[in-house]
């Protein structure tokens, strides 16, 4: 045994021993080499003349050994990234795949400021990636990009694409296509065909030059009403090919249809000559559109009806002219992306795009005729199909020419009357609204009225965005919160597809992150379980996202539907929890968030604990740390 131990010790290679052994080995090799050379020189009878190579080396003219050239010194995907950069695309969301590694490598490595504008955002599901782009576009009025993988990635993303299309939201979708890959089921001749019926436009370029032009066109098509997601299929070869000295195609911004100058002149005349004009504002395209309509309202002295509690990009809710105004005897009502009694300017709807997209005549509900029955008897005479946002500045210009001093004085007087009346109405309504929130104030589970009221206290002084649809939490923000920004409330899902909220909220978080804004997501429990991975994206990319769980432990709408059905059939009304509730076991969302790296607390069923939790949550998100508060709530 003793011998064995000694032997082990002797052979043990310590750090010092390793260095020593290495040195000895080097010395041995060197000495052997010298010995061999000496032997060789001894064998030669005369010294050979230097070769050409030796002479070149001696005068310093040395060439390194030849190695295979890189596949591309200026890969095509670098130019694709530059194209996206020039289009001011801030983010590209993707779940990694084997058909766009060329493009992904360029996003994260190309240029002097790699991985910035666009920045690569890691999504844990393709549907989440598209939802993020959906939420982002609703905040900023412009697209971000998404990368999807072949047939399977596109299919994962398809429901989210469908919703974004129905919601007329611009998104640029870049689909990697590897036609030589061994997984033939992940490629197809026409991948875009999978989602063609619910995308605005697509292209499958044959070469790099075409690909770059197609990306530009994808942007333009996405941004031109009716807006929507667009696709460019990018073959792997095109991403990786050598671009050489190819330059980017010259970019021409989209031409968006507006009303004609003569139409604008007529509208301006009506606004100038009316005693009590009114403007109904729906959902415009961009924050600039919101600014334009404020200018028009202030110039015309019209009272304004807003849609800011239903959709993004509408008129600021607490603007002094927003409200019914001095009286409801409106003698001229102009609708901007909304019905107006006398004249409406509305963008073309999705039906106008269906004839060249729904080639298999699937006939999705929202593109079948009639699309949506008009809410009023449209004469058609004064209704104009054109983009309202593009038309507003032309109306404003014409109106300026029609206002003399006496008219301006009348308008100033009218604005004061509107302001006073709107204040009076607002304060009266507010008292009623606030009083209604007292209902069940101290009850447990937490009342949704209290949830929204307490939360408002902590966000009202911030630049905030309410990113989630609120129909399932009874819309308590309406009348209580002030929706004054283009992104104050982002509206509904698009097509009612569940699983949208956390992804869209992460997208809103991307828009907010570098703009000192915070995002509030009143998150339904059922919805979160579809694709909770966006919580991780929020943590990883440091998004200022506060998620407040409306945890009623069930798919509550369906509880009610099923109940009604059983009542009609006169049986089993006590079995409605089957298939509609999330019990046994309850889901712990605070722990779920924690697992994804999001700070969290809860479940909270004591309403007295809300205020402190919200305070902590807001403090965290202001520092770029997403936060989740799990609250056990009343069903509605």
């Amino acid at each position, binding site marked *: 045994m003793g011998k064995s131990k000694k032997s082990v010790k002797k052979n043990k290679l310590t750090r010092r021993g390793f260095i020593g052994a290495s040195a000895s080995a080097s010395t041995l090799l060197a000495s052997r080499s010298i010995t061999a050379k000496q032997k060789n020189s001894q064998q030669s009878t005369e010294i050979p003349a230097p070769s050409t190579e030796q002479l070149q080396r001696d005068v310093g003219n040395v060439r390194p050994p030849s190695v295979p050239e890189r596949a591309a010194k200026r890969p095509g995907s670098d130019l694709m990234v530059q194209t996206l950069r020039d289009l001011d695309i801030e983010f590209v969301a993707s779940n990694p795949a084997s058909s766009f590694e060329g493009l992904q490598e360029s996003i994260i490595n190309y240029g002097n400021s790699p991985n910035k504008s666009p920045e690569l955002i890691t999504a844990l599901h393709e549907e989440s990636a598209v939802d993020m782009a959906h939420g982002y576009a609703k905040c900023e009025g412009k697209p971000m990009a998404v990368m999807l993988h072949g047939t399977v990635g596109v299919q994962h993303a398809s429901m989210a694409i469908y919703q974004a299309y129905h919601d007329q939201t611009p998104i640029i979708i870049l689909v990697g296509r590897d036609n030589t890959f061994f997984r033939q089921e992940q490629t197809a001749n026409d991948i875009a065909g999978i989602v063609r019926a619910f995308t605005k436009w697509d292209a499958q370029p044959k070469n790099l030059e075409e690909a770059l032009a197609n990306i530009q066109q994808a942007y333009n098509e996405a941004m031109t009403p009716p807006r929507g997601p667009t696709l460019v299929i990018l073959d792997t070869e095109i991403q990786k090919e050598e671009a050489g000295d190819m330059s980017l195609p010259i970019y021409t911004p989209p031409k968006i249809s507006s009303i004609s100058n003569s139409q604008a002149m007529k509208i301006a005349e009506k606004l100038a000559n009316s005693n009590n004009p009114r403007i109904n504002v729906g959902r415009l395209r961009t924050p600039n559109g919101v600014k334009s309509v404020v200018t028009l309202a202030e110039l015309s002295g019209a009272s304004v009806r807003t849609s800011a509690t239903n959709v993004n990009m509408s008129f600021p809710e607490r603007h002094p002219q927003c409200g019914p105004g001095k009286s409801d005897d409106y003698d001229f009502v102009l609708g901007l992306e909304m019905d107006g009694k006398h004249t409406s300017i509305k963008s073309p709807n999705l039906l106008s795009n269906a004839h060249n997209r729904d080639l298999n005549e699937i006939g999705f509900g929202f593109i079948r005729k009639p699309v949506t029955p008009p809410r009023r008897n449209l004469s058609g005479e004064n209704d104009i199909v054109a983009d309202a946002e593009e038309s507003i500045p032309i109306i404003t210009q014409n109106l300026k020419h029609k206002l003399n001093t006496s008219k301006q004085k009348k308008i100033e007087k009218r604005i004061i009357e509107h302001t006073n009346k709107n204040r009076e109405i607002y304060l009266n309504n507010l008292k009623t609204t606030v009083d209604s929130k007292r209902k069940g104030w101290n009850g447990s589970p937490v009342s949704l009225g209290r949830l929204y*009221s307490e939360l408002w206290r902590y966000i009202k002084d911030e630049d905030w965005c309410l990113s989630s649809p609120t129909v399932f939490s009874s819309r308590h923000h309406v009348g209580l919160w002030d929706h004054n920004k283009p992104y104050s409330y982002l509206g509904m899902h698009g097509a009612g597809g569940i699983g949208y909220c956390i992804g869209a909220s992460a997208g809103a978080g991307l828009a907010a992150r570098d703009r000192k804004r915070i995002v509030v997501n009143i998150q339904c429990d059922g919805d979160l379980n579809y694709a909770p991975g966006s919580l991780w994206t929020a943590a990883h990319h440091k998004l200022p996202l506060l998620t407040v769980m409306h945890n009623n432990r069930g798919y509550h709408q369906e509880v009610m539907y099923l109940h009604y059905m059983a009542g009609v059939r*006169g049986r089993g009304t006590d079995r*409605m929890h089957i298939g509609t509730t999330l019990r046994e076991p309850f889901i712990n969302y605070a722990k779920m968030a924690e697992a994804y790296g999001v700070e969290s607390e809860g479940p909270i069923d004591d309403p007295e604990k809300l*205020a402190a939790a919200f305070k902590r949550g807001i403090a965290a998100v202001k520092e770029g740390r997403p936060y989740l508060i799990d609250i056990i709530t009343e069903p509605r």
Partner: protein
Amino acid sequence: MNALYTKTQKRFLISIFVVLYGMFPYLSAADSDTNGVKVYLEQGCYSCHGYNGTGRYPLANDVSGIMFDENIFLAFLRQRADISPTSASNRMPNYSVEVLNDEDAKDVYRYIKTFIDKPPEIDDIPALKEIIDNAQRSTSND
């Protein structure tokens, strides 16, 4: 040997237990043994009226006309729509005597009558008082 309960009865009792177990966080010990609360939860009344009668369609404080008396309440339960709707509906369901007998319905009625909502006044709720105060301040400063 006669079993105390039939197989069907056992299954029924187990299912009641399972449902009540799920509802456990919302039940106080005192209420759990009343038939009214059991039926209120089993029949899903909570889904629209809230666990405390303060939901979207409140019942607390006798605000609903149907709670005027027991007979009106029963008549209301029995006379709901019984025609199969084309589209899903979240309206008040019909409760025929087959799914909810008179005794259980009366127990629910008595339980609902116990719902009292006495929230603090606005002046005593800082979150709400602030909203009113801020609005008045901002409009008077304009």
